[in-house]
């Protein structure tokens, strides 16, 4: 074995210090980076939600105006127009359901509320600014007994489907998943 001089000892010590420093960096760096990503994702989601809400408000503005003016039939036709452009947008289905309730045809409204919640879970999420929890709960409470009675009188697929749709809404309102 060759003898080790002082200079070599110094080099060895410097290498050990560098290695320890790198190890320290490796252990601390990922945590800091992860925190940054989380913050960015939250911010991005909030920005995205806000932009989406603002955009939806703008495109559904004509419907809201007609509704305020009591022009339910025209508002429904406007929704048909928007549905053609945005077929997968839950807000259109929700508004159709609400307008049909105002038109006093709740049986016809159920399917639209069901479609709305399937397309957009925010409508049953109490934390969401867009939630319609109270309104949908009232709908289920009022319509489910009637739908069950219709199914009892006419046990056929259409009546059964409506009961299923109301049970689905009830489940989602209670916090159940899709």
């Amino acid at each position, binding site marked *: 074995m060759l003898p080790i001089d002082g200079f070599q000892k110094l080099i060895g010590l410097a290498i050990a210090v560098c290695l320890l420093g790198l190890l320290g960096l490796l252990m601390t760096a990922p945590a800091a980076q992860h925190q940054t990503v989380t913050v960015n994702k939250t911010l991005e989601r909030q920005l995205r939600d806000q932009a989406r809400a603002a955009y939806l408000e703008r495109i559904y503005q004509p419907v809201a105006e007609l509704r305020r003016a009591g*022009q339910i039939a025209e508002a429904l036709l406007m929704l048909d127009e928007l549905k053609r452009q945005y077929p997968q947008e839950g807000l259109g289905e929700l508004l*159709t359901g609400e307008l*049909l309730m105002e038109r006093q045809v709740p049986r016809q409204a159920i399917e639209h509320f069901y479609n709305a919640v399937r397309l957009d879970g925010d409508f049953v999420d109490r934390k969401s600014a867009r939630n319609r929890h109270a309104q949908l709960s009232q709908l289920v409470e009022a319509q489910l007994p009637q739908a069950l009675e219709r199914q009892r009188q*006419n046990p056929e697929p259409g009546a059964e489907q409506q009961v299923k749709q109301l049970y689905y809404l009830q489940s989602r309102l209670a916090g159940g998943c899709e």
Partner: protein
Amino acid sequence: MKVHLLTFLFVLLLLTLAACQIEGTRPKMRIGYMNCNSEPETLKRFGALNAYLSRETGIDFELVPVDTQDFVERFAAGEFEFTHTNSLLYLILRKEQQLRLLATEKRGRYGSSTSSSIIVRRDSPIKSIDDLRGKRMIFGPQLAPSGFLTSYDLLLSRGFDPEKELSYYAIPAGSFKHEKVIYAVYFGEFDAGAAPSLDLELMIGDGKISADDFRVLAESPIVPYCTFGARDSVDPALAEKFRQALITLTPETLVEFNGEKIKVMASAWVDGYETLADSDYDGLRAMAKRANMPPYQVY
């Protein structure tokens, strides 16, 4: 051994023949389908549904396209056992021929119901029913609930008598009358029109018109949509089989038709069928009485 084999084969052949009803030996019946827009459309639209009903009931159904105006007369003459008509024709046939209610068609946002809308152009100075005084209006065919009766009754219910207060009203001739009403208003031929809300919904969905093109002055209450019925002499078990075939249809139901497997509901442009009670037609009955329309007209 040879004799046994031949006997076995003979019995097998007999059983096969008995189990398999040859097309020509099946009972034949006819379904009268009211022409909504035109005869070619009726044949194209209901061919697959007719084949499905034949398959499900074991009856060879002949599809008979029938003009709305001729329907009652041809039914009374015994030309068909089952009917597919609008709800006003159902009322007439029910009252005069004891037609049995089977199932009601679902289509559009009101499902098994429908309504009519009184429309004007968006840029029209007409803002209300009162403004229609002295104006020209176009209605759909007279026996169409959502093209004529419900709008006519809507005007009467607002204290507006179309016979006295419009300067003139017309009904288009030929096929596709509902679309003609909508286009007649769109192109300014008439000041106002009585359009089925379903047609407006469908035409907007197809991009033929825009919601921005029209103002809706008023929309009628909803009444039942197109209806299947059976002559009272039809075997109740067969009528029930027919009804079951209709109400159990799903969007995925297929049928062999013209050498192709076709989705029945999509082909017939329907969202399904459901069972309504005859009393569900009472609102329409009341409208027909108020408007002095068949089957309650008084001279």
